[in-house]
């Protein structure tokens, strides 16, 4: 990988040694397959989408970095069902 940037490289890659790979798991929310990382209290952070439907990538709720409350989602599902 080659970084091509006018920014000082020390600033860009500062802390890269301490970075640990996120403990991801694969889940399916609303029919969208994605990799998520647990952030506690029943919420997950989207790491990346795995879906092959390009339309899913335009959904603002499933942008990488977005936090999804899966506990609340499951409640909603129980109420409606």
């Amino acid at each position: 990988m080659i970084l091509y940037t006018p920014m000082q490289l020390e600033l860009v890659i500062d802390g890269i040694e301490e970075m640990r790979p996120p403990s991801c798991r694969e889940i399916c929310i609303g029919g969208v397959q994605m990799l998520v990382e647990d952030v506690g209290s029943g919420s997950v952070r989207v790491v990346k989408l795995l879906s092959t439907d390009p339309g899913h990538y335009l959904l603002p709720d499933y942008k990488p970095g977005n936090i999804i409350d899966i506990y609340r989602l499951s409640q909603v599902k129980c109420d409606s069902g």
Partner: protein
Amino acid sequence: MPDRKKDEKPGIHMQSPEIDPDPAIVPEHNPDYPAEPGNPDDEGSPRNPRRVQGRPKGGGIEALKELGSTPLPEIKSNIHCLSIVGQIEGHLVLPPQNKTTKYEHIIPQLVALEQANEIEGVLMILNTVGGDVEAGLAIAEMVASMSKPTVSIVLGGGHSIGVPVACSADYSFIAETASMTIHPIRLNGLVIGVPQTYEYLDKMQDRVVRFVTGHSKVTAEDFRELMFRTGELARDIGTVLIGKEAVEKGLIDEVGALGQAVAKLKQLIEESKRGKEVPLQ
């Protein structure tokens, strides 16, 4: 002095509604029944129950309370805005102090945009400090090969690998104050975990130069001259082009920002629609 119950404390007493007042409840105004408390037909009930009828305002109040923002009116737009900000993140996840644009998310988005019937044009907004060469070139190639009209605006900065991304659109704009840094890959860029040779980096650089010269009016000689110019940058060789200068070099089509870009995109959409129409014989 009016009669008062013994346990009641002296003072002004409000008539309390049957439900707690809540900003999320709006009263329903029925033009046939003005909300008067003393309707003589209602016997024995001084409070009209209609007064407390209401409906929740939807998500508006929540958005205001939680985020301090007012809900936006829903407008279905025929253009899609794609923003490329911060570092273009490639094969390596960058530390969290970087603002990044993830190419693995942008690329399927471009596929969806190419396919979506309701999207007629793409407006790309760039404020990037460069990033991964291959990720940047991948986005640039995807945008360049789209059949729908694309317009890019460089706001703030479109440096290094942001240059080919800006050029990839059908028509490009640069804000008057925006800047673009053009510099060689080998001096500032670092190869992480790759055995590098001068030739390897030179090849990478050629890819960038070929793309930029193929998608803008700048010639390869001019672009290389800008890339290797000395005495302009403090820590590096290369050039910073600001607004008008980028247009003069032929890298960008026009100086302008939002208004001009949206107008141009509309014009390109109209032209592409007209081009698709089969001429009547």
